[in-house]
């Protein structure tokens, strides 16, 4: 147990330089293309004082590395600055607010994806080359090769246009969570969640199938069968746990990505999440906001990687934290 704590502490320490380098690269790139003065340049009434205010506000007269240091110093104290293109809203609460909306999609989507991917992958592997296996692998193939927006638009057209009378899809708004009925909440969430589930399950189930196939052909499965264990027990006890080990890493990546906001899905369903916010921040050259969201996503990735490594150690006794 102590070894695990020491490991976590060490991992967090080694993450800090990673985080610094990563955010610096994003900062430098964004800062060199985003020019807060550009909008003022076409402004007739603006005087030099306006320029000076902006230059002073963003330290535009300082070199980028130095500006990064100032930004980081503030960020470390929790002050992520303001987002000038979002009505000067404070970045931190803004990002948190949108992150919650994103999580409303990400968490249920992830739970469904994880369950479905394992179930489909295992089923497909156990019944290799059967009709249902071809069906599942066919579905994965379509899901992997089709871009997300195709699914999103298809679902939207089918359920929110053609069958709108029957399905009655609802748009999402934040107060719905407090005032809307359960059925309304479900109908606003179901299409974007389904989009995410379809696309990501396709990739994950394929991965799980491959992993399970490898396990099924391993010697210890043969041993388990030779003991006279029923098929179900061979697969579920001896196969599943081994076949899930490689999936843990994928889960960490996918869950972090989901919580970081899906640009395409959220944009198409007008979801007030992190995805569209980041897109706008980049287009509008909003440095503080871009950095705030990037920082959030980086922390997610780092956090879930750490979780993955811990889960990995729980599933596989050969892993040691030294």
């Amino acid at each position, binding site marked *: 147990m102590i070894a695990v704590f020491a490991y976590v502490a060490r991992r967090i320490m080694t993450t800090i330089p990673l985080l610094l380098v990563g955010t610096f690269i994003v900062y430098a790139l964004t800062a060199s293309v985003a020019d807060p003065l550009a909008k003022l340049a076409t402004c007739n009434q603006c005087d030099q004082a306006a320029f000076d205010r902006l230059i002073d506000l963003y330290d535009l007269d300082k070199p980028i590395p130095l500006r990064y240091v100032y930004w980081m110093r503030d960020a470390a104290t929790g002050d992520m600055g303001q987002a000038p293109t979002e009505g000067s809203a404070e970045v931190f609460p803004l990002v948190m607010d949108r992150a919650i909306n994103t999580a409303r999609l990400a968490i249920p989507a992830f739970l469904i994806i994880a369950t479905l991917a394992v179930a489909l992958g295992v089923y497909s592997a156990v019944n290799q080359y059967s009709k249902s296996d071809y069906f599942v692998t066919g579905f994965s193939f379509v899901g992997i090769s089709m871009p997300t927006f195709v699914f999103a638009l298809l679902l939207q057209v089918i359920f929110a246009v053609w069958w709108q009378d029957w399905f009655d899809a609802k748009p999402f708004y934040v107060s719905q969570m407090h005032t809307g009925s359960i059925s309304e909440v479900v109908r606003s969430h179901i299409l974007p969640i389904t989009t995410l589930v379809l696309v990501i399950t396709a990739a994950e189930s394929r991965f799980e199938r491959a992993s399970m196939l490898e396990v099924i052909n*391993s*010697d*210890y499965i*043969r*041993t*388990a*069968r*030779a*003991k*006279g*264990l*029923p*098929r179900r*027990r061979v697969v579920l006890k*001896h196969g599943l*746990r*081994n076949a899930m*080990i490689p999936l843990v890493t994928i889960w960490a990546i996918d869950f972090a990505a989901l919580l970081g906001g899906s640009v395409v899905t959220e944009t198409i369903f007008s979801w007030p999440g992190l995805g569209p916010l980041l897109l706008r921040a980049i287009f509008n050259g909003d440095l503080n906001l871009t950095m705030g969201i990037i920082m959030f996503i980086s922390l997610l990735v780092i956090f879930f990687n750490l979780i993955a490594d811990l889960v990995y150690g729980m*599933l*596989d*006794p*050969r892993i040691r934290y030294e």
Partner: protein
Amino acid sequence: MTTEPLLSVRDLTVSFDTDDGLVQAVNGVSFDVHPGETLAVVGESGSGKSVTAMATMRLLPRSARISGSITFDGRDLLSLSDREMRRIQGEDIAMIFQDPMTALNPVFTVGNQLAEAIRIHHPDVSKKAASERSIELLEIVGIPEPRIRVENYPHEFSGGMRQRAMIAMAIANQPKLLIADEPTTALDVTIQAQVIEVMRKAQEATGAAMILITHDLGLVAGVAERVQVMYGGRLFETGDTGTIYYRSRNPYTQGLMRSIPTFAKRTDERLSPIPGSPPSAINLPAGCSFRPRCEFAEAICRDEEPALRPLDPAGAHQSRCHFAEELPDFSQRTAEVAG
């Protein structure tokens, strides 16, 4: 032998449908194993030893086409349902595999896997009793500090210890038949003898019969009562261990013998592996399948496949060779060479 055979295999033929064609892995093999005896099955790689064993355990993949009959303890194994067969697997027939490094599940403790083998066939045994029995089993196979070791994961065991654990698992339910498929091939030479000794002890403790599969004839002495030699999916020679060792009447067996280091030394003959390589299981040559590599081959060997013929009235010694009677004794020949 006067006793009823425990296992009786008749005309076993196994082929696999593969992308490259029909693989003829086992071809018309018949043999008996009597209660308590040890039968060694010897042959080069690809001769069909494992497939024969896996057919007996009913562990072959679904792509296998099996014909013939396998009778165990009066029951025709090939016609049992999966559920009925599972009651025999691990209970009446248990198997020890070649590679102990991969044969145990890495994510469960050795004790867990041992106890599972017991409790799946004896659900009335409590967890605690199964765990006690696991410790006892580890003790039988010579694992030091079994009470501690039972909690270990397979990766905490050495190769030799893992194979001991596999043996412990195989004898957990006092099976009537043990099938060991090259149990020492993957192990260090220094440990091989120990593991063979453990298997003998385990066999003694349970009174089980054993099929010992190996490609090393040298391993067989002192362990097996009878030897049967396979080549290209066919039985080439079968007989008592002494007969096979000293009066083999088959060029292939004699070739195998000459490739055993200890034998070659004793007879002052140079260690010489059989030239050429075993036949492909897809296109078996016409006539005798060993002909391309045989120093005694004549025209008849190409035209006519020799039958497995009894060489004594009791039929205890049988050989598949047109010239079985004319062949010089292995020991005589080596003596001639030496002289």
